């Protein structure tokens, strides 16, 4: 029943797509790292929307473009090496091609690795008729001494082939023309079907007519038979429910379709089982080796290796950045550089923004008074909610607007996989996936984004570990706390000229500690709650590519900065109101804040902090950015969060409250280790859909933070530090 409903969903979806003014539905397929998303962006521009595939935590990007009065809807399928459905991504891509009946399927091909990409192309050609090949990265291929004979390739594959360099927009016009031609039927395709090796061909020759008897004449009957032979349950179901006949038959021009009877089906499945038993064990091997043999033959005809270039810049760079002596120093220097540029660069714009936004607050205040609004309302709205918003924007926006472009630059350059390559051994020891490195890098910007990026990890166990430990990488929102502590308690001992350098050095040290904790906790999880060995792991090391300025700006500013800032604002607003209430509602002559701090003080002192800091950490669960202003408010006993002070003034204020170097160190440790912010917790819930893991994602860091802070505070005090 469920399947029938699903079947209708697919139909419904296609119907809705076209009803919203689209004439054609176009799917974009391809291997990972082929520049598929660049092609997608190049075709759709800003007319795109990213959501999730129904019921799956896999991102689904869709967009649209116009050509010659026709509107095209473009769906970006997950990047996969194959469509033989061994992973969720592959299943999504395959089901879309099979059941949503796109008018055109564009396969983006990396020209530098023709054989492996043709593997996917040949599989797509087996399922769909209306295919266009986007031969991307032809410039890179030329640099590697590879020349592609586009005409020959097009003849061999039986579909249009369009060479492109998508990151500079080259060839995209021709691609659109080809898509339009195939969609309208002006270009007639005759897709090449790969040659099967003898043994399996004999079996198929026998079985295909039997399937055909049951399903009617289907264009992709051979592919469906192969899937049935392999015991593909999804295809099995589609036959059972008649979904296959109704979908593939009506939409791809089959002449006969009918719903099979129960007996017919039973007989067919029995025969399939018998046939499959003959070749079962090596069926997959046969199919894949047939495809690759074909891919090799096609590639050897149309891809000419002009000359192996001697100056292979890629491997030269790789030899340096992964060398035994330089690999780690380069990573640490780069990390420090990113921190330093972010801290230095954010300083002035932060102050500028703060000035502007607090000026606006004064105007708002005046407006409230002019209307004669009661004082509590003005306090709650202006000095509570608005002020915390202003603080979050001024503290968060500039560093993010600097950090994310830098991060995206390194990402686009192709350096991040090299980091993963260098430190993978730690993850192997921890029993997790090496791609966790990439999710951690993302976490530096925002842990919620880091948690989402864990989707790239295939094994559910390893993905969960990456989600649970992402919090140990300090995000942008926690930097202000770390920077302030590093500046006024650590760097203060150094001349002002090197203070931001010292601050970033402290940041790197504390970050390395967070990374070490990540390994330890991951290893502990792998040996206890999430027991298991690390599964098969492969890391693709793409060629270095010159990053595209416009793409960096788009990805980092619109896709990352603005979205994350928006979420932070949504959460910070209610927190601001709460802070105002805590600081302004008096019971027995003392504010709520003071009462709460009194209760928490003994625990706070035990772990090297104090009552006010703990209260701040509870109030600031929604947004870590407002920790410092909340602490300042608590110390000053004023009724509102305070504006930027000079660092000397701040230092005096903190010291007067009994703040010491031990407190500063423990606060930095607590900041890195403590539970994730509300946005991240919400994201963890969305990604795992499990109350247990969402709770543990908060509990594990909290326990780690308390234990570490307790240990550090007690040992430092024993050693004579106050």
């Amino acid at each position, binding site marked *: 029943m469920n399947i029938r409903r699903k079947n209708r969903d697919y139909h419904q979806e296609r119907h809705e797509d076209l009803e919203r003014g689209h004439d054609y539905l176009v799917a974009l397929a391809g291997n990972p790292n082929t520049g598929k998303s660049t092609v997608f962006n190049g075709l759709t521009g800003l007319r795109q929307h990213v959501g999730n595939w129904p019921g799956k935590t896999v991102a689904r990007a869709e967009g649209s473009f116009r050509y010659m009065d026709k509107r095209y809807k473009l769906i970006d399928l997950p990047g996969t090496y194959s469509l033989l459905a061994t992973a969720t991504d592959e299943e999504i891509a395959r089901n879309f091609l099979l059941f949503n009946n796109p008018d055109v399927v564009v396969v983006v091909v990396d020209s*530098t690795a023709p054989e492996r990409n043709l*593997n996917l192309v040949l599989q797509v050609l087996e399922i769909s008729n209306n295919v266009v090949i986007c031969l991307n990265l032809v410039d890179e291929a030329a640099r*590697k001494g590879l020349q592609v004979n586009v005409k020959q390739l097009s003849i061999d594959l039986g579909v249009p082939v369009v060479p492109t360099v998508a990151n500079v927009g080259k060839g995209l016009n021709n691609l659109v023309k080809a898509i339009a031609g195939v969609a309208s039927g002006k270009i007639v395709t005759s897709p090449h079907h790969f040659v099967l090796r003898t043994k399996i061909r004999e079996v198929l020759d026998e079985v295909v007519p039997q399937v055909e008897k049951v399903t009617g004449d289907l264009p992709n009957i051979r592919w469906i038979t192969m899937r049935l032979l392999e015991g593909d349950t999804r295809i099995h179901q589609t036959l059972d429910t008649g979904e296959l006949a109704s979908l593939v038959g009506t939409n791809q021009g089959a002449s006969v379709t009918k719903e099979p009877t129960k007996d017919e089906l039973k007989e067919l499945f029995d025969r399939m089982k018998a046939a499959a038993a003959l070749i079962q064990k090596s069926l*997959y091997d046969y199919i*894949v*080796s047939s495809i690759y043999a074909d891919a090799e033959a096609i590639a050897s005809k149309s891809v000419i290796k002009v000359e192996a270039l001697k100056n292979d810049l890629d491997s030269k760079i790789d030899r340096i950045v992964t060398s035994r002596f330089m690999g780690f120093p380069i990573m640490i220097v780069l990390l420090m550089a990113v921190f330093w540029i972010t801290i230095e660069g954010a300083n002035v714009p932060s102050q500028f923004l703060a000035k502007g936004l607090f000026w606006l607050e004064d105007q708002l205040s005046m407006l409230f008074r002019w209307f004669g609004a009661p004082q509590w309302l003005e306090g709650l709205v202006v000095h509570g909610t608005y002020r915390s918003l202003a603080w979050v924007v001024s503290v968060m926006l500039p560093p993010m607007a600097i950090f994310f472009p830098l991060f995206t630059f390194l990402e686009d350059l192709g350096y991040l996989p090299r980091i993963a390559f260098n430190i993978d*051994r730690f993850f*192997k020891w921890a029993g997790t996936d090496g791609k966790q490195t990439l999710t951690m890098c993302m976490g530096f910007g925002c842990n919620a984004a880091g948690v989402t990026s864990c989707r790239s990890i295939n094994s559910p166990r390893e993905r969960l570990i990456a989600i649970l430990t992402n919090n140990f990488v300090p995000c942008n929102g926690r930097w202000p706390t770390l920077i302030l502590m590093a500046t006024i308690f650590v760097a203060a001992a150094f001349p002002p000229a090197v203070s931001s350098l010292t601050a970033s050095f402290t940041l790197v040290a504390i970050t390395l500690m967070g990374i070490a904790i990540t390994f330890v906790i991951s290893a502990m999880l792998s040996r206890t709650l999430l027991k298991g060995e690390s599964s098969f792991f492969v*890391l693709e090391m793409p060629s270095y590519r010159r990053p595209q300025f416009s793409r960096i700006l788009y990805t980092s500013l619109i896709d990352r900065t603005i979205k994350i800032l928006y979420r932070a604002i949504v959460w910070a607003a209610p927190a601001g109101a709460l802070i105002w209430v805590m600081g302004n509602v008096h019971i027995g002559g003392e504010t709520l804040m003071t009462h709460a701090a009194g209760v928490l003080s003994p625990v706070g002192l035990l772990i090297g902090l104090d009552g006010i800091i703990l209260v701040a950490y509870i109030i600031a669960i929604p947004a870590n950015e407002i920790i410092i202003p909340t602490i300042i408010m608590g110390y000053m006993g004023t009724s509102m969060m305070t504006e930027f002070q000079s660092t000397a003034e701040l230092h005096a204020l903190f010291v007067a409250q009994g703040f010491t170097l031990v407190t500063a160190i423990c606060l930095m440790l607590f900041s890195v280790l403590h539970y994730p912010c509300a946005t991240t917790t919400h994201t963890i819930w969305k990604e795992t859909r499990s109350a247990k893991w969402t709770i543990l994602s908060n509990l594990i860091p909290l326990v780690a933070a308390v234990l570490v802070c307790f240990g550090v505070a007690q040992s430092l005090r024993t050693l004579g530090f106050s």
Partner: protein
Amino acid sequence: MHLSKHSEYKTLAEIKVGHRVIVVRLLVEGLTRRRLLDLGLLPGTEVVAVMKSPLGDPTAYDIRGTVLALRSEDASKIVVKSLSS
């Protein structure tokens, strides 16, 4: 297959950086085998070890024009025959 009797056979995990080998057989079944096959690691495929991580593992290999890093556990399941020398 008795690896000890045929000294020209090794596993992919054992070859040195710069060596060129040809895949003979995959000693693994199930999902891992499928993933390896999908990446083009079939019997008869040429593979070159390109570089080693500073920590000794994983190793990156050139497989059909793409550089892919494999952990020694996974690479040790691929039997290869030397091509260079």
